[in-house]
């Protein structure tokens, strides 16, 4: 029976070198002085430029390991999703919702002879902006996609194995986030696909050397709104995915995670509706503006009109980063009981 010991993996050897510099040799006997692990460099530290290079190299290696681990988790999550038959039902439901929304868009377009490309009330802007189908679809999709991420891993006891592998919890959370965000984008892809079809096909077929082929280009409209809508979906979708993941990290059972995420998504819808209610109740404009400033669906509306505001992008990315960091911290606290 071969029991050959692999002395170290590339990941292990690089980090072992880095840690050995701080902690002493790996095989050194454990004693009191050995426990100390100085964080920064002491004033009398005689290390020279060569050591700085080694430190930089160790840092690069650590970043590479972090991203490799996150990529591995992301790839595994995506793979696991597509191996479950229920996932295809979910994607089918998302596609049908988009198709339903598209039929509503076509109805709107058929009422007017031409599209008037105004910033408000434009059907295309409404299609890729906050409409009842998109809001409903996202509100249901996010809990269904994120409930399995952490809560289900806990239920199946695979979370323990994942976190005892040499991977930082943040890398695991980041990998899972990347997977959930990608899946959300895949589920929302039919919305964009429909608009592209509308732009490049007029809905009639022609005969091309005996082969049925597309008759010609479709409706002419400003593609800026489509780009804006796509970017908005990507950015606001990232916040939704991070929020869902955070809720999943707080729960031990997928059903609780789904309910919590649903409640969070419901709150986001309520925040989107709040400005109209506040205006009806004659609240001050600055108070209404404050609520509008934190409304995710309001942000998507601005994106879908082709307006890209850097402060909104930065705000969503910051919230996303905070939620992911919070997930990594709180999920470990939940594990501790």
């Amino acid at each position, binding site marked *: *029976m*071969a*029991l*050959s*010991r*692999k002395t170290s*993996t*590339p*990941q*292990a050897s690089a*980090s*072992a070198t880095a*840690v050995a510099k701080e*902690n*002493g*040799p*790996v*095989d*050194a*006997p*454990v004693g009191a002085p*050995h*426990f100390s*692990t100085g964080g920064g460099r002491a004033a009398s530290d005689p290390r020279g430029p060569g050591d700085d290079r080694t430190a930089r190299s160790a840092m690069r290696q650590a970043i590479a*390991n972090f991203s*490799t*681990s996150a990529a*591995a*988790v992301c790839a*595994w999550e995506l*793979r*696991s999703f597509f*191996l*479950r038959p229920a996932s295809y039902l979910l994607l089918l439901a998302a596609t049908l919702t988009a198709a339903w929304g598209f039929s509503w868009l076509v109805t709107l377009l058929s009422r007017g002879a031409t599209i008037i490309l105004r910033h408000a009330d434009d059907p295309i802007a409404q299609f890729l902006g906050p409409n009842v189908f998109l809001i409903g679809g996202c509100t249901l999709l996010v809990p269904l996609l994120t409930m399995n991420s952490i809560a289900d891993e806990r239920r*199946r*006891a*695979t979370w*323990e*194995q*994942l*976190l*005892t*592998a*040499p*991977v*930082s919890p943040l890398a695991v959370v980041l990998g899972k986030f990347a997977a959930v965000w990608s899946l959300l984008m895949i589920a929302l892809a039919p919305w964009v696909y429909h608009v592209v079809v509308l732009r490049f096909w007029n809905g009639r077929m022609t005969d091309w050397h005996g082969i049925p082929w597309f008759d010609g280009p479709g409706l002419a409209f400003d593609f800026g709104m489509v780009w804006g809508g796509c970017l908005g979906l990507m950015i606001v979708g990232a916040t939704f995915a991070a929020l869902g993941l955070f809720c999943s990290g707080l729960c031990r059972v997928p059903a609780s995670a789904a309910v919590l995420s649903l409640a969070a998504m419901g709150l986001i819808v309520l925040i989107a509706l709040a400005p109209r209610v506040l205006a009806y109740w004659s609240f001050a404009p600055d108070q209404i503006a404050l609520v509008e400033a934190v409304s995710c669906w309001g942000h998507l509306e601005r994106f879908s009109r082709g307006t890209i505001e850097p402060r909104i992008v930065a705000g969503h990315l910051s919230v996303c980063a905070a939620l992911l960091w919070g997930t990594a911290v709180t999920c470990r606290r939940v*594990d*501790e*009981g």
Partner: protein
Amino acid sequence: MSIVVRELTKTYGALRAVDGVSFDIGSSGLVGLIGPNGAGKSTILRIVSTFLSPTSGRVIVAGRDAAVDPQGVQRNIGYLPENPPGQHEARIEEYLAFRARLKGVDRRDRRNEVDRCLELCQLRPVRRRLIGRLSLGFRRRVGLADALLCAPRVLLLDEPTIGLDPLQIRETRKLLADLAHECVVLLSTHLLAEAEGLCGRILVLLRGRLAADLNIAELRSGSGFEIELCGPRTECERMLASLPQVTSVILLATQGGWHSFMVAAHSARARELAAHQCQERGWGLRELRSTRGTLEDHFVRLAMRGTQEAA
């Protein structure tokens, strides 16, 4: 030392799941962790594996402090949790390849490493099977194969033979015995016969405390003993520890000025010397007996004593 645990305590609200446990484990060998349900065995393994953090105390694995460098600890351990892998939709070899990738095995070596672990755990014939369709025994072996990836210096196994058939148990025990030549294996088990047959050393946990640290060879030779004496506690403990050939002294109980100690020793002469020292110092001595017997006898005695104390 491969594992150093000092004054480890873990509390869940008012419950002290682990209470001031300390032990050291050398660079190789098989060490058993036994105790009744709720004694804290799995909690200790979870803390050593870095999944849980202790409320207080310190854990050092392969020279890395778990609180300071958890990833350093994780690189040196292979951990088989109580529940086997639950990735039902994955095939065995795909799952192991993913775990190998997480553990930092280079893409070129990954296949060989997975093959090695499949071979060790006799999973080659079923390598393409979905984990969800495997029996509990096979799933535990998949978990064991995962723990063996990267040939860790420390193996932490929580009930490794539960759910296996008799032939698989035999093979697994043989595998563990072989592995113990190259690394430290710390296994938790309910099966006393298994612990006695496999392990050279047994840590007995009762209600979160380390009740005994037994050397199986000493247990069989009867050179260890239990002594109940009346005198200043610390002096009694110091006197017993200073006896030649004594390896450990554990206080079992204190009642009405009488202290019960369990003493592990390499030679039966330590027992005679203990009696002699008590007489010389004028301390009362009302029980002195060899701890020769099976692990089960010993464990039952400790557990009964613990129950009486709790009552």
